[in-house]
């Protein structure tokens, strides 16, 4: 039996602590859309997406209103286009991105992900075409997201692709320079990318997934922070317990939404992603949770330990609340999307280098970081290589979503709007070159821990 206190607590989480379900993401396989003629292929994917996701937005809105829980985004992820479009006789996939954009707008979703390639061990012809198409594809579309997986614990790191992605990111920034280089905010480079991630910009419908699935990404950093406010002097055992209990409650709501969405859409339930996803809104920040644990400002010594505890406790609490947990599941630390992170960068307590350390224990990686437009492509590639190495060696997902904003200098900031937020330009402290390192190319071999058989 629910009590009045339970009801008040839940509604307070929603209204005061900004508890929400970040996204219902429908994964759709496009493997049956292949066609040598790219125009026909584009028609095939447009038809399949608009038919499959026709009721996604309406269903999300119905659930939102019936249960009184905000569902912020409805999204679609598709088979990596490098695979789905590979049969097309063409040298560019830009028209495919445009077809995805058109289909996504037709069904009214917020983002569509899957303009992607999986190249951790090597390129196929489709992968090469896709990666070359990314800058133009992101410049000529609005809500298409792109990702490239270039490393894994099993396969090592494709350093040719690392080199290429530095250049692709620079080019993407250049082509969208009139919009604060927003193209780069929709492009993420992964190591160990999961095929069932419902979060953007990295969502794609993995090759081992079913025909269609519905997955849900929860949120709720504000709720965790609020819970910690009540135990100011408690030790870390109690802090971890409190986070676990809160994560359980948050995830149960996600599970309910996923079950309902799956039933109403007639599409199997995929996974719940337990990630604590912040927004730029006040009271919805992962950095503020770390500060609530006793750090004067996020980035101070102790931040990595605090984040490790948070990330682990979120998983432990959320696991029991859902029948299938997957995706990225942990605590995100996107700088521009988190009011506390933005403040920490502005007051000089959080640096790119500290963020790199934090990515060893967070759920993903260097996320939504704006740097000077003049940062060389080789340096961006080298930052990617470092992140990919952390992911490869630690058997975890890492990613880089970095925005070298043309014309911007330290002291400037960029505003992407909406959930993407705003970001002060973050200095890349080392002025030394990584050019010769990145120029080598080839593959970093898979680590010893890949040999588990």
């Amino acid at each position, binding site marked *: 039996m629910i009590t009045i206190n339970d009801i008040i607590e839940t509604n307070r989480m929603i209204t005061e602590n900004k508890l929400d379900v970040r996204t219902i993401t429908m994964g759709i396989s496009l493997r049956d859309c292949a066609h040598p003629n790219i125009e026909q292929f584009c028609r095939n994917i447009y038809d399949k997406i608009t038919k499959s996701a026709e009721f996604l937005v309406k269903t999300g809105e119905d659930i939102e209103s*019936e249960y009184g829980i905000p569902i912020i985004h409805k999204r679609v992820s598709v088979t990596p286009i490098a695979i789905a479009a590979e049969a097309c006789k063409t040298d560019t996939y830009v028209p495919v991105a445009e077809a995805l954009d058109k289909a996504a707008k037709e069904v009214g979703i917020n983002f569509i992900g899957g303009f992607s390639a999986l190249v951790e061990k090597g390129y196929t012809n489709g992968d090469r075409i896709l990666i070359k198409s990314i800058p133009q594809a992101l410049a000529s579309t609005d809500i298409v997201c792109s990702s490239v997986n270039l490393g894994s614990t099993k396969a090592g790191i494709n350093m040719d692709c690392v080199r290429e992605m530095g250049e692709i990111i620079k080019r993407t920034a250049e082509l969208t320079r009139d919009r604060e280089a927003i193209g780069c905010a929709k492009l993420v480079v992964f190591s160990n990318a999961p095929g069932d991630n419902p979060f953007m910009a990295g969502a794609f419908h993995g090759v081992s997934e079913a025909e269609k699935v519905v997955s849900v990404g929860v949120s709720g950093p504000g709720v965790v922070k609020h819970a910690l406010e009540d135990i100011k002097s408690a030790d870390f055992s109690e802090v971890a317990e409190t986070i676990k209990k809160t994560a359980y409650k948050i995830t149960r709501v996600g599970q309910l939404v996923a079950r309902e969405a799956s039933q109403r859409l007639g599409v199997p339930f995929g996974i719940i992603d337990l990630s604590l996803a912040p927004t730029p809104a006040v009271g919805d920040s992962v950095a503020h949770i770390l500060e609530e644990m006793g750090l004067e400002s996020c980035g101070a010594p102790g931040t990595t330990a605090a984040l490790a505890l948070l990330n682990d406790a979120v998983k432990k609490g959320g696991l029991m609340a859902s029948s299938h947990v997957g995706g990225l599941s942990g605590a995100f630390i996107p700088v521009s999307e988190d009011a506390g992170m933005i403040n920490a960068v502005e007051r000089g307590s959080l640096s790119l280098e500290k963020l790199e350390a934090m990515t060893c224990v967070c759920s993903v990686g260097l996320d939504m970081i704006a740097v000077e437009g003049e940062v060389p492509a080789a340096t961006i590639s080298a930052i990617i290589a470092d992140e990919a190495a952390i992911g490869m060696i630690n058997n975890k997902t890492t990613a880089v979503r970095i925005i070298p904003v043309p014309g911007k200098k330290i002291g400037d900031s960029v505003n992407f709007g909406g959930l993407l937020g705003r970001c002060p330009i973050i200095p890349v402290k080392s002025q030394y070159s990584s050019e010769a390192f990145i120029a080598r190319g080839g593959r970093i071999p898979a680590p010893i821990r890949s040999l588990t058989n």
Partner: protein
Amino acid sequence: MKLVVTIVGKDRVGIIAMVSNILAENNVNILNINQNIMEGFFNMVMIVEMTDSKIKLQELQNILKEKGNEINLDIKVQHQDIFNVMHNV
């Protein structure tokens, strides 16, 4: 289908009567009422059953929301399951 109706706002005469009337008119049965006044603010939680109701959940939400707005009350109607899943293992 069981719903939870929560009403929060400045206290005045006739809030319970107003809400109960709307529920009765639409054949929504009240199962449980919990109400108190905290620092001059009216707080009420009702559990209601709308299986035999003449209207749909969203219509009921709209009617109560509009009525609530007229007299400065925040009235929410939610499916009971969101509370059940969160607070029960």
